[in-house]
């Protein structure tokens, strides 16, 4: 059972950070190609293509950012951090993660509220609610909280002097 649960979580993780942004990117890219082709070769301007490109773009960015959170690829200033020993790094990781996790936890409900409110606005052609386009932002926030908590746990283990497997060391530092 736990094995099944782990597999389901791993699949969800991959779906949100890899599959969905790839589908969104392909959708955006295809809509662009149709838009350009129809305008210059068929002398016809489709209005719906623009909305597909915008929607695909927003989903690519927000879910792609989930992938960047998962891979710890967001830009940070590491000049001071790199000079510290593992325990010093763990303290910094813990302090930074607490500061941001609290902010993101505070953000969840107002973000949900704002996104729900945006359902009253729709796109001009396809009548897609703006809330649908903005919703992945919430996934990005929740994803980021999960990884910050994971890194904080590793940092606590480092502070307690636990030996960590090689692949987890970089996650806290």
């Amino acid at each position: 059972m736990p094995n099944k649960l782990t597999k389901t979580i791993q699949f969800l993780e991959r779906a949100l950070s890899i599959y969905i942004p790839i589908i969104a990117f392909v959708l955006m890219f295809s809509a662009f190609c149709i838009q350009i082709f129809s305008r210059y070769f068929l002398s016809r301007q489709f209005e719906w293509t623009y909305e597909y490109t915008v929607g695909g773009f927003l989903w690519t960015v927000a879910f792609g950012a989930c992938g960047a959170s998962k891979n710890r690829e967001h830009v940070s200033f590491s000049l001071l951090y790199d000079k510290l020993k593992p325990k010093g790094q763990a303290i910094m990781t813990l302090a930074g993660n607490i500061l941001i996790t609290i902010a993101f936890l505070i953000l969840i409900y107002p973000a949900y509220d704002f996104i729900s409110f945006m359902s009253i606005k729709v796109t001009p052609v396809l009548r897609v609610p703006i809330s649908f386009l903005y919703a992945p932002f919430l996934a990005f926030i929740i994803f980021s909280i999960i990884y910050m908590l994971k890194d904080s746990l590793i940092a606590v283990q480092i502070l307690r002097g636990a030996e960590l497997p090689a692949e987890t060391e970089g996650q806290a530092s």
Partner: protein
Amino acid sequence: MTFSLWIPIIMLVLTFLLNIPVTYGMLGAGVYYLLYTGGDIGLVVGQTMGSLYTGYVLMAVPLFIFTANVMNSGKVTDAMFTFSKALIGKRKGALAYVNVLISLIFSGMTGSAIADAAGIGKMEIDAMVNDGYDKPFSCAITAASATIGPIFPPSIPFVIYAMLSGTSVGSLFLGGVVPGIMLAISLSVYVWFISRKRDYPIGESFTFRQFAKFSIKAFPALMTPVILLVGIYTGVMTPTEAGAVAALYALIIALFGYRILGFKGLMRTLVDTVVAAGQITILTGAAAVFTYIVAKENIPSMISAYILGITTNKWVLLLSINTLFLLLGMFLDTAVLQFVFLPMVIPIVRALGINMIHFGVIISLNMMIGLSTPPFGLTLFITAGISNTPFVKIAKEILPMIIVMLALLMLLTFVPDIILFIPNRMMG
């Protein structure tokens, strides 16, 4: 001074001190600021996603990244390398010239210095070392020439600057053509000088038949920037659409011309693209939150009033901003400069009537020089990493190249027509 004014500043300092990802730091600053001032915290979503929803030009970012990832594969880089070698021919220091030339060619496809240094960099350094060049010089010229990437169009930093300043991205691309070529020429002049001084190896000679063969092989890839630039010059496409056409073209030649992409390769390229696009673009959205609170607290106006109280001479201001950004670029990542500091100086630059295309090109060149200045030069770290060369040795070797780039930066700062000549003629 109210405490609310200090919230973004304190958050920024903590972001740097605690190694917090800049995106998180900016979003966190927004949350704490709105919490303290009693504003609607949901505005964080409104600013982040709203700026992306209306930021049409930003859609070019994932498209350029995709093109770069497709073109940065072995067979295309090999074709570029042999073509460049054949073009440079039998010269002293030939491979160093080739290094600069490839960067110029690749800059027309990738628009990113990191893609240049990390992608083709290893091949360039290995070839130079095998030919008898010393490792630190090989790394240094690779890092320095990677600077051309975001100056010659297309350019991801130009797209982001266009978004932040409301400047035409097409004009910025056109403004980057001459400076990109001049940067390549300046570095080549340095290569000429140092190759003679150190007696670097002479390149191979190629027959006309060989040159023609390599040119034909490289031709499809060489056409990528041509398609992009002609599309923008003629006004047939917007820069974002040109990004889509270039990406489609790159995909077609990779699948059917060079036959370098199978299903697995395509999937890997797509994964790399969406993660990189997410990382860069969400930062733009988070910067909109930060810019919102900074603007609400009148910080740009305060800085503007303070600076304009000292000088209203635009040349003094440009020199000061250049100096400040160069100093900051020695310690901070380009993204931090672009998203935190640039929005603060844009209103001052505009207030003094400085041409925004001119400023966009010089500040981008300035930030790219920052990528190769120690102690925090990302391209230096990359080249040191891929070649196992001590960072300090590369940092020492790159100093004269930085002086060359700084001289060019000053020339472009004080002679704006070098940048503005093409955009003024083509875009009116």
